[in-house]
């Protein structure tokens, strides 16, 4: 037993030197998290408050002008007023505008007719559907402001109505950075756990160095354990670094407990490492291992984890696939720990699913690598 531990220690030492001496490991564990966090933290924003809208106003009535004012006053719009409709349409095609609002010359005339209503045309650039629906929603909002003001100024009795008072819990200012940064930490850890591990193990196979290891008393299990411990430490180091960046540089709140965070990240790293080891045991080639880990590790972590795209909106089949994506549980746990706090039940559920996934993975790895020794 003592011999065994000594062998593993020696292997870890070897692995440690390899990590230190190979710039690509440092690149992935140190520089890449920095790049990714900066880009996600500062670069990506889903907050639409600078929508460029072309405004054509052909009617000169007081109502039309008041409507125009409520569009200009909307904090979401940047209004370009013009009478050259052709030019505005060209700009919409050239991606220079997000929408065009038109108040036609017959606006006030139609308003006075009992059988007609004064139309306001809102054309959005549907080639970006998310932005287009924001254009439509905010236009509706501007129009409602106009209606409300008209009501007040006309002095007519107030119509009883229901007023929605929205409140966004845990992220009052709707800062998309608050959910993107924790999500990108999960992606970084997937990369270290899965991609890097798959590559380094596949490299041993490809270069034949694994055969020289097999001629020593080291068993394949010891070899895998040593790899795991080394990359586990690297991943945890990167996790601490990313969390520090998130809190100190991006000013994210951290409302949970650091102890729980370390448990959650350890469990997730074990799963991610398991995926990486499994990939490299199945394919002994670096190129293939990297492709498989991108398709099965990185992309799902990015696309299917609920990090940006809402899982409930996906088709049933893809929703079913997401249940075995470890990053899904990690993203949910991280977002909760950062923004909400230690919600016991949610964390417990997420951790136990990840543990179950880890268990299944290691059973498969164990079976596969034993076969190979025969």
């Amino acid at each position, binding site marked *: 037993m003592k011999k065994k531990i000594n062998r593993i220690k020696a292997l870890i030492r070897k692995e440690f030197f390899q990590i230190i001496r190979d710039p*690509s490991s440092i690149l*992935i564990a140190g520089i*890449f998290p920095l790049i990714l966090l900066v*880009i996600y933290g500062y*670069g*990506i*924003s*889903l*907050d639409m408050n600078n929508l*460029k809208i072309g405004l054509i106003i052909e009617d000169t009535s007081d109502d039309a002008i008041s409507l125009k004012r409520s569009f200009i006053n909307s904090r979401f719009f940047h209004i370009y007023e013009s009478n050259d409709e052709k030019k505005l349409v060209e700009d919409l095609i*050239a*991606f220079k505008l997000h929408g065009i609002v038109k108040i036609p010359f017959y606006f006030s005339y139609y308003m006075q007719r009992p059988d007609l*209503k*004064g*139309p306001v*045309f*809102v*054309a*959005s*650039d*549907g*080639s*970006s559907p*998310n932005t287009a*629906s924001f254009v*439509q929603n905010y236009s*509706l909002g501007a*129009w409602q402001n*106009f209606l409300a003001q008209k009501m007040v100024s006309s002095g007519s009795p*107030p*119509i*009883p*109505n*229901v007023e*929605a*008072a*929205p*409140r*966004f*819990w*845990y*992220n009052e200012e709707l*800062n*998309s950075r608050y959910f993107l940064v924790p999500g990108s930490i999960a992606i970084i850890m997937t990369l270290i756990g899965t991609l890097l591990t798959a590559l380094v193990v596949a490299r041993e196979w490809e270069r034949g160095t694994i055969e020289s290891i097999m001629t020593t008393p080291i068993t394949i299990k010891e070899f895998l354990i040593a790899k795991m411990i080394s990359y586990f430490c690297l991943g945890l180091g990167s996790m601490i670094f990313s969390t520090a960046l998130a809190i100190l540089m991006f000013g994210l709140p951290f409302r949970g407990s650091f102890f729980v965070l370390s448990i959650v990240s350890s469990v997730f790293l074990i799963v991610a490492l398991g995926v990486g080891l499994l990939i490299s045991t199945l394919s002994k080639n*670096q*190129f*293939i291992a990297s*492709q498989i880990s991108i398709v099965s590790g990185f*992309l799902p972590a990015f696309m*299917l984890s*609920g990090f*940006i*795209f*809402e899982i*409930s*909106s*996906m088709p049933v089949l893809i929703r079913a696939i997401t249940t075995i994506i470890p990053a899904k549980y990690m993203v*949910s746990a991280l977002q*909760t720990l950062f923004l*909400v706090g230690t919600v016991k039940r949610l964390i417990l559920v997420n951790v136990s699913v990840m543990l179950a996934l880890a268990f299944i993975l290691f059973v498969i790895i164990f079976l596969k690598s034993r076969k190979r020794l025969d």
Partner: protein
Amino acid sequence: MFGKIYALIVKEFITILQDTKTRIVLISPPIIQLFIFAFAATLDVENVTIGVLNQDYGLQSSELIKRFEGSRTFSKVKFFNSHKQIQENIDNQKVLMVIHIDDNFSKNLLSHKKAKVQLLLDGRKSNSAQIVLGYASKIIDQYNSDLAKELGFKPADTIVIPRNWFNPNLIYKWFTVPGLVAILTLVITVVITSLSIARERELGTFEQLLVSPMKPIEILIGKTVPAIVLGMFEGTLILCAAIFIFRVPFTGSLLALYFSMFLFVLSIIGIGLFLSSICKTQQQALLSVFVFMSPAVIMSGFATPIENMPYIFQLSTIVNPLRYFIVIVRGIFLKELPFVEILKNIYPIALIAVFNLTLATWFFRKRIE
């Protein structure tokens, strides 16, 4: 001279395509990516579970809630009977939104006052929450105008007529799939180029190439042609899938698309060659490809609009060829982008291609000498 280059090109194709596993890897991941991306990458919000805490006993509140239950967006409505349950369900991500109606709701409405409805949303998913709020506001507006009509008030004498051009039903796939034509072409091209030299170097065959009678520029050409061919092939594959499987309308000029794709592939090859000339092993090459690709894709406007980014980031996208190519592809697919606009986006790609290829050649020669 052409004979030598031709021989090298043939050799390159054989190295890339001879291995079944590599062949599979070249073909299947892009297709898997295409399908996963196309179906999963949606910012639409559907099948949402919401919660209701109704402390009002009047008819009005249950009428309002019925409208939420009838909406297609909200697949399930859970009923709570305490504030504690609201907290519990939001915290555990069981519901995205809770509608809280307090006990004087109906009373207020009956006495012709404003009645407040509190909508509590999970800010952990602020984008989805905002979209859900949009749906909820529409339902409440409809309720308000019906109520006004019922009570004999004059309905509003103006109306907003919304139209979504180029994509009337706002189908999200029409947005993602054309973008993927660009992204997947990028991935394949950069992976093939960066690996080809790194592989030779790792296996030691690079020296053999150098002692052959070939000039460095001939070696470079021999390395780039297969990447151009395979990159364009992959692009064509995705293009066909977009048109024939995903049925994204294709309104513009196919010729212009291919011309810009060619320039785009050239600019990417420059990057691939540059990366592979600074890397010693395949692993280093792959990882640097990765480090290059993540920012390149994120800062291209593929998923999130460039104009939302801080100014410095917007500035840095100027050198990103993907940014221009995505505009071209999306424009040609949906908007029948006029030639002037295509040209405006092609010339930066051409400049970047010239710059990258020159730099890569220079680096390559310096490495050899």
